[in-house]
């Protein structure tokens, strides 16, 4: 009797050992890794990187550290971004190591494989962010190994890339194949094609052009993805990419699947953080907006003919007839300081006030529109760059076809020969405010990157400001292209600051 009396299994949670008995249960095992685990990165720190790259401007102290390159390890958002990536690693490890041994006999092998493939995909993607932001970090394949001894060394960048490549390959092996159709509800999960696309990018970062090209071409030839507003989907446009109703469209390779559920940290904060300072267009329930604005540099970036400009930044006088505002549907950007004294505002990811078109909003003004990690346009640009393969220029039709598909969708004429600088600029135009330009700058030769960044006007519309990043190959702390390890984790494990130790792959 007493034994039963003091045995209290959980009543509001599920014990790990008692779950995973049906296909549905195993399929749902990875759902949380498409949203919550990413929140602490996407909430603010992702955009901190856009400030650092010179795409965005912000004076808000929680997100503006990289504007002046004064970000340091005590920054709470930096620690949040770091933790978020490790949350993905921890959850992926739990599935990779334990799922197969815990599933019931009624679960199909391909369901198990796909779930584990998703875990490999998430782990690789998390490490890809970690290595690009922090450089050397510890490779952790089983968190439980370190519960009693958390004092581990970092591993070298090259080992981490090897690890990422292995993980994406494992993901390609296990994930299901897919063709992205017009039933967007079926497009949310990653596929073999998603993993190949990510792997193409990883190869590109390693300047392994043949493999990057091969991977990109496998994706292109599979016809899994299509450009919205490209030749295959001419009725749609670049602007459609960022509408709530187009979550998981045909161009989406991997996107975070937000779902507000009443808890802080479950939905997309961009709708409040972007837009303009007055809450005219910010979502309801937030009394502010425009925590980030465009940098002065961005205002002069786009060609007049470039259709992407209107969908990326808001300039006084611009009209958005479908956006809901506090004054009703239809918004004309006022001629004011707008966001952060920038003079304009960020349009991308800004949906406006809650309406049928925006989907629901939560108490913090967050909405359920996806955040892209990769979309097909980028894969095409990766392909073009892989074909260029480090050369001075190319007129290879394969490269031009991919490159011009992106340009034409934006309303710009085709080019007949392209250089690295052309592709580099096109990436910035296409992916502006999507969290990638900081990493693009990071893979340049450092003197080139420093030249670009020190020439950027990093002030607001009233004051010009210029800052020069520092690069040191040997000193992690004195390298503005790597981010400091969070102080709290360094205090817990000072070995993070020691030289990396080669990883033993098994």
């Amino acid at each position: 009797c007493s034994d039963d009396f003091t045995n209290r299994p959980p009543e509001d949670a599920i014990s790990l050992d008692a779950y995973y008995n049906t296909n549905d249960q195993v399929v749902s095992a990875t759902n949380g890794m498409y949203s919550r685990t990413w929140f602490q990165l996407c909430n603010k720190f992702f955009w901190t990187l856009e400030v650092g790259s010179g795409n965005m401007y912000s004076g808000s102290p929680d997100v503006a550290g990289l504007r002046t390159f004064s970000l340091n390890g005590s920054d709470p958002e930096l620690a949040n971004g770091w933790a978020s990536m490790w949350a993905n690693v921890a959850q992926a490890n739990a599935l990779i190591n334990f799922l197969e041994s815990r599933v019931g006999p009624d679960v199909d092998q391909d369901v198990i494989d796909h779930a584990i493939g998703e875990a490999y995909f998430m782990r690789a993607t998390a490490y890809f962010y970690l290595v690009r932001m922090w450089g050397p970090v510890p490779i952790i394949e089983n968190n439980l190994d370190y519960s009693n001894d958390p004092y581990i060394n970092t591993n070298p960048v090259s080992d981490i890339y090897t690890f990422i490549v292995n993980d994406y390959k494992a993901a390609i092996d296990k994930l299901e194949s897919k063709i992205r159709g017009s039933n967007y509800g079926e497009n949310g999960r990653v596929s073999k094609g998603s993993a190949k696309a990510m792997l193409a990018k990883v190869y590109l970062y390693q300047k392994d052009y043949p493999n990057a090209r091969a991977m990109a071409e496998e994706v292109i030839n599979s016809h899994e993805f299509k450009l919205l507003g490209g030749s295959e989907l001419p009725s749609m446009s670049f602007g459609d990419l960022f509408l709530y109703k187009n979550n998981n469209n045909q161009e989406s390779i991997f996107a975070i699947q937000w779902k507000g559920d009443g808890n802080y940290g479950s939905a997309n904060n961009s709708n409040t953080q972007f837009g303009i300072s007055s809450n005219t267009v910010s979502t309801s329930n937030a009394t502010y907006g425009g925590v980030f604005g465009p940098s002065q540099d961005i205002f002069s970036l786009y060609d007049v003919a470039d259709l992407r400009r209107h969908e990326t930044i808001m300039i006084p006088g611009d009209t958005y007839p479908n956006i809901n505002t506090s004054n009703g549907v239809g918004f004309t950007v006022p001629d004011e300081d707008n966001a952060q004294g920038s003079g304009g505002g960020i349009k991308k990811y800004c949906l406006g006030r809650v309406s049928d078109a925006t989907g629901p909003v939560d108490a913090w003004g967050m909405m359920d529109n996806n955040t892209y990690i990769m979309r097909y346009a980028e894969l095409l640009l990766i392909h073009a760059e892989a074909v260029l393969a480090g050369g001075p220029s190319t007129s290879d039709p394969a490269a031009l076809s991919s490159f011009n598909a992106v340009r034409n969708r934006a309303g710009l004429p085709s080019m007949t020969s392209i250089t690295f600088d052309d592709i580099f600029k096109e990436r910035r135009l296409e992916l502006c405010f999507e969290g990638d330009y900081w990493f693009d700058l990071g893979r340049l030769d450092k003197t080139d990157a420093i030249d670009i960044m020190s020439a950027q006007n990093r002030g607001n519309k009233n004051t010009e400001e210029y800052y020069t990043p520092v690069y040191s190959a040997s000193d992690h702390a004195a390298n503005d292209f790597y981010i400091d390890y969070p102080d709290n984790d360094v205090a817990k494990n000072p070995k993070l600051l020691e030289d990396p130790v080669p990883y033993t792959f098994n």
Partner: protein
Amino acid sequence: IVNDSKGMALPGVSILEKGTNNGAVTDFDGNFTISVQKNATLIFSYLGFEPQEIKVIGRSNINVVLTEKLEGLDEIVVIGYGSQKRGDVNSSISSVKAEDLKDLKQISLDQMLQGKAAGVSVTSNSGAPGGAASIRIRGTTSLTGTNEPLYIIDGVPISGDATGKSTSGQPLVGKDGFSSTGGNGNNAVSPLSMINPNDIETIDILKDASATAIYGSRGANGVIIITTKSGKKSEGKIAYEGYTSIVSNYKDLNVMNLQQFAKNKTDLANLFGLETRDEFSHPELLGLGTDWQNEVYRTAIAKNHQLSFSGSKNGTNYYLSAGFLDQEGTIINSGLKRYTVRLNADSKVKKWLKVGANLTGGITNEKVTVNQSFTGLISNTLLQAPDIPVRNADGSFAGPPSSDQSVTYYNPVAEALTRDNKLIRKNFLGNVYAELSIIEGLKYRIEVSANTEFSKNEDFRPSYKWGSQENVTADLDTRNQNWYSTNIKNLLTYNKTIDKHSFTILLGQEANDSHWEGVVTSSSGFKTNENHTINLADVDNNTVTGYKGSASISSYFARLIYSFDNKYSLTASIRSDTSSKFDPTTDNQTGIFKAISGSWKLSNEPFMEGTKKYIDNIKFRIGYGETGNQQIENNRYTALLNTQNSGLGSGFLVSNSPNPNLTWESLNQTNGGIDFTLFDSRLSASFDIYDKTSEGFLFQVPLPDYLTGGGSQYGGISAPYSNLGTMQNKGYEFTLGYNLSTDSFSWNSSLNISHYSNKLVEIQDGLVLTQQVNTNGYQPVVVTNTIVGKPIGMFYGYVAEGIFNDLNELNNAPLQFGQPVGTGAGETYLGDVKYKDVSGDGVIDASDKTLIGSPHPDFTFGFTNNFKYKNFDLSLFLQGSYGNDVMNLTRRAGTKNSSLYENQLVEAANYWTPTNTNTDIPRPIADSANNNLLISSRYLEDGSYLRIQNLTLGYSIPQDVLEKFKMSRLRIYGSAQNLYTFTKYSGYDPEIGSFNQSPLLSGIDNGRYPSPRTFSIGVNVEF
């Protein structure tokens, strides 16, 4: 006529003719009639009074004045599953009587214990009506678990943990738990605010482990046993007490008025190179602007009524009471109402059977104020700009006119008046028992008790437009929770005295079962602010979540008390507890807790006979005991999956790393003490010294984020709990009492002084126990650290050594945070704070953070004095703390000088300039993240204080007047609570307490609700 020393009639006094069975009892007016021989001797006896023998000597009219028994050695002390005479107790137990508490006009009894018992430290965590207090019995025992004692109210166990760590872990109020970095602030509500303090008869505080070990697993933080009133007199008594209080803050902080604000902001704009505001160009022409403190704080009224009926008839005792309290908070639109009823009854049904019940119900209805938070009302009040009016001309609430001025503060008056944040709690608690006398000395008692609470929190924030600040659609958060616990006890007690040997043997069994569940909803999109139930919200914006759980403990225990010749005494106890918190498939569930203690009454030795005239009692005590703690979340021994939603549907992620080896946290305590009374028990003193060591804390290992991903809240995997570390508390406590009584004058006085020193002895290498709080601008900062060899929860930061005034000095000083000397952004210049190079490495960086101050006092004290002269009574109660520091983050926020739109303290204008160098306020920098604002010794202040906590003057109407109205007592009194505080502390109140009872976040003033001053007048009436 028989009267007491105050001249009041004593009904029910028994009178016996000596040597006969001839007796009588006084009637309602104290009159008696008895027929006796002329030379007979009458013995008058009455509970609580010294018996008196009077020779009749032929008189037919005898007036007798009985004197009240001096509280002392015969007093009964409750020791846990039994009671003992004070003189026989071997452990360290403090008792507080209703008499000592009656003048304290506090809402809940935890606050009333402040300064009343040695070794018991009580700090109110908030001045809000109903806010929780932190009680530490002999220092801090657990590192991250609860440190609150266990309360036993008429046999019903109630944890003092206001955060419910071991049950649901959910707050009763607010969205994001008890996080110090969240916006809810200090939201723990007292688990005891449901109990009407007027119903309490005695409070016995078991302090050392030899006493608490009988409570085993839950005794580690001390046990407070509360006994409520029961009927006494043979005749029924009706008692009424009512009082009305005026409650107000006794201090305003000196913030800038509009003229000062305008000048300051113009100066700052010029300094920062920003545009000045035209309207501020002639500050002298402006008015004083809005005095937000004046608008938000008010003089509040509190009303209390308490009516009780009690009596005793034919072996049946009863006590029935009803209480009503309506206390407004000193912040507008805050307050608490409480309704309580109690029925205590017991009856001797048969010679061998006694049955009884104690039942109470209470309802509180509280209007909650967010405090100790950057979004709290106190912060809003202090930092809101005085150029913003409370209301616009049309009567609507005002706000910053343009969005550039929209800092993170809201119109606090609007916030207080329109935000509807209510907490309703309904609590029912009671027990029934039967006691059988089987044979002489052998008793069996069975007791069944239950406790349940239903609570409901509704926080409605209407849609509004206050200037440029707008909430488009109203929001509603609700929390409905209920929990219950049942407790059953079987006790067998055997008493036997053989010659000089006397034994008491106790065998017992106890089982405790608790269950909790809750539903939490969040809605928005209301079309109107009028009615706001969930069904009126936008259906797409309704979210619901819930939780549920249960826990149990099964126990067996035994105790032997042996004494020989009233000189030597020994107590030994053992208890076995089996807890559901640990893995049921292992033997980790069961803990065994042993205790032994002994005493020697030196004064009863024959050779001390000669000193009896002066020293009537000396007793030495020594004891050792083991207790435990198991108050952690459920099921930490196994890995759990928690729901996580995404656009793909809801799924599950692993939420924690398991640890099947988890077991009891243990605490061992050794206690030595001496008690003595001198001069006919007029002077009594007690001294105790103790050493307590807690080991194997149930502790969530603070693993680095690269292993946990930040914990389960954002999809990571929370670190496992483990049994880790050792902490020691050593201390002493001293109580001195003096009683003086003559016919018309009496004085009794009690002084207690307590000291403890706390030390973390060991913990796993590399564990970092820093704690953060949120400050304005959504920036959490580390404020405390806990390191091996030092007390826990020490203030942590940089050491400030004044301000750079000299360029040479600056150029030669260690480089600060990698910032070169210069005037630009990110550079160090004259007027900046000079930090100390603690690590001696020639630069100032994070390695120079160090322990900069202590929230732990050197000692705390309480001094109670009661005087009576004829019909007047006067009591004076002083209480205080010495040697502790306070981290004044309110002053930090008020002297930042970094924004053009938030108000500041007047002293902020005294910032450094090349011509104003003699100041401790650095040069202004237009960035609230600048290094001058780092947590440093600049923000520490001496938190010592001496407080006149209570002064009460009463007058009782003389008996002869009362008789005409058939009354037995009528007393009127005036009372002042928190009358005056002597302190150097510059904030509202040096008594800060702990953030949500956290032992690692004590003494941090981040906009705490100030404890108010209360003047009351009241009346006691008895029939």
